[in-house]
C-alpha cells in the first residue's frame, strides 16, 4: 500500500498592486521560478501541470532566481532571508543567509554562479553581496537611501553590477569584490523598478515608475540615452533581455508588454492584455521574462491577477494564459460529466477555478462571484450541471458547469455560511443559527437544530449537521424540510466536517482537534474511533467509490488514508500543503487523490495497493 505525489498544479505567482514581481527562467528556457505565499514554485514552461515546490522559507517569499549553471536557485523572503537550494536533485538547502532587515526585493547571480547580490528594504543596509555556498562577503551595497527594487550583475568580466530603487538613483558597482563606482541620480524622476545587463554585457537598461527607459554602457556605466519616451502610459515594472542582446521586453501597469529594438531605439511589438474598465487593474503587467535557450521566441508576462501570459514574438494574441489561485484554496469539489472529471476550487480572495483532471489546466470562472472567502462548493445535477458556492459575503451563487461562468443568480443568506451540501433536489447551507434549504437557487425551507451549526453534509434523502458542542444530528430530507432522526454526541470538540459514504450507510465525522470517527447512519452506532493521528482541525473528508477507504485532510498539513477493513493500518502523507490542507477528494475511480490547501496549489497523489 503506497501513496506518492504524481503532480503539483502550481499556484500562480503572488503579486502586489503597484509593485514589481520577479520571474526567472533557467538558462535552457525549460522552467520558470517564482514566489507564491511562503513557497517557491519551479514550473515547466511547456507543461505547466508539472511543477516542484520549495517550502523551507518561514516568511512570505518574494523572489527566486536560477543560477546560470542551472543547478541552484536562490530565493528571498519578506524577513530578509535568502536561501540557496538544489533545484536538480532533492531540493536540499545549501545555505541560509540573513541579508537585510526587511523584504528581499530582488537578487542576482554572477556569470560564474558563484556570487549573489540580494537587495531589498532594510534598516542599516539595503543589500549585500555574498558567495552562494558559504555566505562570505564579496563586496558592499552602498549609496542607497531607500529600498532597492532591482539588481543585475554583468555576466562577463570585468564584473559590474547595478542596483536601483525608490531613491530614483541607479548605483553602478565594480567587482569583485563589488564596490561603489558611481551613482546616477538624474535620469529617473520616480522609483526605479527594473535594471538589467544584456546577456553579452554591452548594455544596461533601467525602467521605472516614471515610465522611462534609460540605456547605459554595460562596462563603464556611461549613460547612452533614453528611448521610447511617452510610449508606456503606466509604471514600467519589469524588463528582460532577449538572448541575442538586441532586444528587450518591458511590462507595464498600462496593461501592455512591449518589445524594444536597442539599435533602432524603437518598440517593435506591443501586446495589450485584458480590457478597459473596472477589471483593468487585474491586467496590470507586473513582471516579464524572456526565457533564453528557446527556439520559439516565447516570452512570458505576469498579470496582477497572477495569470501567466505566453506571448510569441510576431504573434498578436497570447498563445496561452495560465490561470490558477494566488491565495489559500479554501474549498474543493468535484463534478463528473461525460466521464470527464473536473475539480472546482475556491480561494480566500473569492476566485473560483475549474481544473480539468486529465490535463491539470485551470480556468477561472467568469462572471460576478464572491468578493472574498469561498466557504464551500457543491455540485448538483440541476440544469445541465451546476456548482453551488457559498462565500463570506453571505451569499449562495451558482456556476454553470459547461459554460464555466456564474449563472448570475445570487441569494442572500441569513448569516455566515458554515458549509454547503447537496441532496437529491435541494442544496443545504449551514449557518450558525439554522440550516437553509434551497431549490433551484431559491430558499424554500429552514431548519433549526438545538446547537450552533458548524458544518453540513447531505446524500440523497439524508443530511447530517455538525455542531459547535461536538453534536452530530442525522436528518431526513424530504422536499424542502429536514427532520432530526438520530442524535450523536460525537466529540468533546467542535465538529469541523462530515461526509457520507457513497451508499449513505456510513457517516465520517472530523473534529477540531483532529479526530476522525465513523458512525452507522441507520442507528448512529459507532463504527470506529481509532483514527486520532491528526493533531489539528480536520478540514476535509472523502470516501472512495467503494466506501472502503476514507481520506482526511487537516490543518496539521497531513493527509491520511484510512481503511475500514484494517483500521490500524493507515497511510500517511506529511507536510503536503504548507500551513494546512483544506480539501481532499478521490479522483480517477479511486486510484488517485487530489488535495488543495493554504499554499494555493492543487496536488495529485497516486494510491496503490489499497488493503
Amino acid at each position: 500500500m503506497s501513496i506518492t505525489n504524481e503532480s503539483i498544479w502550481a499556484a500562480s505567482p503572488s503579486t502586489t498592486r503597484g509593485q514589481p514581481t520577479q520571474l526567472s527562467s533557467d538558462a535552457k528556457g525549460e522552467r520558470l521560478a517564482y514566489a507564491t505565499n511562503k513557497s517557491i514554485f519551479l514550473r515547466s514552461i511547456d507543461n505547466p501541470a508539472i511543477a516542484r515546490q520549495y517550502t523551507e522559507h518561514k516568511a512570505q517569499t518574494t523572489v527566486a532566481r536560477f543560477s546560470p549553471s542551472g543547478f541552484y536557485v536562490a530565493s528571498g523572503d519578506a524577513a530578509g532571508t535568502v536561501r540557496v537550494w538544489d533545484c536538480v536533485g532533492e531540493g536540499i538547502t545549501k545555505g541560509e543567509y540573513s541579508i537585510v532587515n526587511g523584504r528581499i526585493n530582488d537578487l542576482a547571480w554572477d556569470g560564474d554562479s558563484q556570487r549573489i547580490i540580494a537587495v531589498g528594504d532594510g534598516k542599516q543596509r539595503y543589500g549585500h553581496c555574498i558567495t552562494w555556498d558559504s555566505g562570505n562577503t564579496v563586496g558592499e551595497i552602498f549609496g542607497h537611501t531607500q529600498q532597492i527594487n532591482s539588481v543585475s550583475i554583468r555576466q562577463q568580466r570585468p564584473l559590474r553590477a547595478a542596483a536601483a530603487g525608490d531613491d530614483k538613483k541607479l548605483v553602478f558597482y565594480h567587482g569583485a569584490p563589488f564596490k561603489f563606482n558611481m551613482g546616477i541620480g538624474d535620469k529617473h524622476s520616480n522609483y526605479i523598478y527594473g535594471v538589467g545587463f544584456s546577456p553579452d554585457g554591452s548594455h544596461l537598461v533601467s525602467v521605472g515608475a516614471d515610465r522611462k527607459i534609460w540605456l547605459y554602457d554595460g562596462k563603464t556605466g556611461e549613460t547612452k540615452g533614453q528611448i521610447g519616451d511617452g510610449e508606456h502610459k503606466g509604471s514600467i515594472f519589469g524588463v528582460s533581455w532577449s538572448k541575442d542582446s538586441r532586444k528587450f521586453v518591458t511590462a507595464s501597469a498600462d496593461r501592455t508588454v512591449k518589445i524594444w529594438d536597442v539599435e533602432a531605439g524603437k518598440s517593435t511589438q506591443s501586446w495589450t492584455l485584458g480590457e478597459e474598465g473596472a477589471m483593468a487593474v487585474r491586467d496590470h503587467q507586473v513582471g516579464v521574462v524572456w526565457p533564453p535557450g528557446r527556439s520559439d521566441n516565447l516570452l512570458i508576462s505576469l498579470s496582477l491577477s497572477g495569470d501567466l501570459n505566453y506571448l510569441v514574438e510576431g504573434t498578436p494574441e497570447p498563445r496561452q494564459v495560465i490561470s490558477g489561485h494566488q491565495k489559500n484554496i479554501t474549498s474543493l469539489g468535484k463534478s463528473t460529466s461525460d466521464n470527464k472529471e473536473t475539480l472546482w476550487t475556491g480561494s480566500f480572495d473569492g476566485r473560483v477555478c475549474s481544473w480539468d483532471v486529465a490535463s491539470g489546466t485551470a480556468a477561472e470562472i467568469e462572471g460576478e462571484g464572491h468578493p472574498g472567502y469561498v466557504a464551500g462548493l457543491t455540485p448538483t445535477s440541476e440544469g445541465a450541471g451546476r456548482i453551488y458556492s457559498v462565500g463570506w459575503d453571505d451569499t449562495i451563487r451558482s456556476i454553470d458547469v459547461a459554460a464555466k461562468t456564474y449563472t448570475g443568480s445570487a441569494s442572500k443568506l441569513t448569516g455566515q455560511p458554515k458549509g454547503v451540501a447537496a441532496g437529491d433536489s435541494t442544496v443545504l447551507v449551514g449557518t450558525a443559527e439554522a440550516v437553509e434549504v434551497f431549490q433551484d437557487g431559491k430558499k424554500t425551507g429552514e431548519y433549526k437544530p438545538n446547537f450552533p451549526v458548524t458544518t453540513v453534509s447531505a446524500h440523497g434523502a439524508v443530511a447530517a449537521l455538525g455542531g459547535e458542542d461536538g453534536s452530530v444530528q442525522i436528518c431526513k430530507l424530504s422536499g424542502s424540510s429536514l427532520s432530526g432522526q438520530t442524535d450523536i454526541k460525537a466529540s468533546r470538540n467542535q465538529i469541523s466536517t462530515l461526509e457520507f459514504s457513497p451508499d449513505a450507510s456510513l457517516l465520517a465525522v472530523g473534529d477540531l482537534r483532529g479526530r476522525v470517527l465513523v458512525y452507522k447512519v441507520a442507528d448512529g452506532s459507532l463504527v470506529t474511533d481509532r483514527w486520532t493521528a491528526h493533531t489539528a482541525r480536520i478540514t476535509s473528508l472523502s470516501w472512495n467509490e467503494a466506501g472502503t477507504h476514507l481520506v482526511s485532510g487537516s490543518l496539521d498539513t497531513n493527509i491520511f488514508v484510512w481503511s475500514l477493513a484494517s483500521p490500524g493500518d493507515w497511510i500517511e502523507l506529511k507536510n503536503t500543503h504548507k500551513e494546512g490542507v483544506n480539501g481532499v477528494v478521490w479522483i480517477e475511480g479511486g486510484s488517485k487523490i487530489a488535495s488543495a490547501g493554504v499554499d494555493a496549489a492543487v496536488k495529485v497523489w497516486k494510491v496503490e495497493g489499497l488493503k
Partner: protein
Amino acid sequence: MNPSNPPQTAEYGGDEVSAIVLDPGYSTTRAGFAGEDAPKSLIPSYYGKYNADGQEKLVFGDDVFVTPRPGLSIHNPIGKDGIVEDWDMAEKVWEYSFTSRLTGAKPGNPFHNGLNDIPSEELPTEMEVESEEKPLADSPLLMTEPGWNPAKAREKTIEIAMEKWGTPAFYLARNGVLAAFASGKASALVIDIGASNISITPVHDGMILKRGVQHSPLGGDYISSQIRALFKKNSPQPITITPHYLISSKTAVEAGQEPQAKYKTFPADKAPDASYRALLEERTLSEFKECVVQVWPGPNKLSAAGPNGVPNEESARSSPGRPFEFPDGYNQMFGVDRFRVVESLFDAKAAIPDPESIFPAPTPAQTLPELIKASLGGVDVDIRPHLLGNVVVTGASSLLYGFTDRLSQELMAQFPGPRVRVSAPGNTAERRFGSWIGGSILASLGTFHQMWISKKEYDEHGANIVEKRCK
C-alpha cells in the same frame, strides 16, 4: 507526636493525619490538605506594612485589600524571577496561608496560660524547652518550587519547614514535574504561564532536564504592564484605572464618554502608599484580562499577513470588539488592541512601548517561541520529538482566550517535522492550581511515605538532604 521519631506510614500516609500541600507563587500562595480537590486557602503572596502607634504592623491574606490604611504599603517577599528574596517575610506569608484556614492558630500551652493549676511533678521538663507548639508539628508538608530554584533557596525552605514550623516530614517537588504527572505524562514539555514568569520545563522520565529549563519575566504582571501602556495611549482618551476604594458612587455613561463618578479623597497623611493603589488596580486588570484580552490565534504573528496574504491586523480588526466597564463607570469597546497587549509574548517587536513601565522592552529571547527553542536546544536530540508530542500547558495566565491555539500554531510552524500535540486541562481550577492538585494527590498516597524526608533524616544530614532526595 514526637518529631524526633522517624515517620510511620500510618501516621501521615493514611487517614489519620493529612499532609499539608503548600504551593507558593508570586501572585498567590495556595495551601490545603492533601487529598482534597482544590486548595482550601488561596491568599495573595503580597503583604501590607503600616505604622500605627509608632509600631510597624503587618497585614496578610485578603486583609491587604480591605482597608486603605494611612501609609499602607504593599510588598512581596518573592523576587520578580520567582525566587524568594525576603526569607523572613516569605516564612510569615506562607505560615499565614496554612494557619489562617487550615491548622488554625494553635492554643497556647495549657501549662503556661495560667488557667490550669498543674502539680509541679506532672510538668514535663521537655515542655520547658518546647515552650510553644510549632504550627506544623502534626502535619507533613509538601511544598512546590520552580525548576530554577537555586540550591541555597531549597535548603532555606527545608530549614524553615523543619525548624520554624516543626513539620515531622517534608518534601519539595518541582512544579513542572507535578504538572506533567497531573496530565498523566512522565515525559512532557511543561509550559507554565504564571504571574511573574513564563517558564519552559522539559521533564523526561519523571526528572526535570535542568539544562532545558528556561524562563523569562513575560508573565501575567508583564501583560498588566502592557495593558497599562495601552490605556495611556487609548483613544478617544487615555484611561485611568480608579480602584473601587477611591469611588463613592458612579453613574452609567455612554461608551467612550467621560466617567461620571464621585471620588473619595484621602488627605496626604491618611492616604495609603502608591503600592496599595497599584495592587488594587491589578484586580481591575485581572478582570480585564479575563473579559477582554485575547491572544491572536494565528497562524503567524499579528503583525504578519495570514496565509491568505491579508494582514492579520485587518482580520483582527474585523472581528467584533469586546466591551469593558471600569470601576468608575467609564466603558468602551476594545477592538484589535485586545490582541496587541499579549502579542509580545510571541513577538517581541509587538510590545507596546512605555518608557515609564517597570518592565524593560522585551527581547526576542524572552518570547515563548524563543524560550521553547532554547529549551529544546538544551536537551538531547532524541527526546525532542517526545517532548513536542507531549506539551502540557499550565498556569493561570495560560487561560487567556486563544492562548493554546496560538501556541500550537507557533510550535507547528517552528517544528514542522515531528508531531506536535498540546494538552491543556480544560478545567480552570486544574490550570490555575495544577501543581497544587498534583502535590495533593501524591502527598495523599499511602505509599508516598518513602519519599518524605523525616525530621530525623534532616537532623542527621542537614539541609543539604533536600538536594539528594528531591531531585
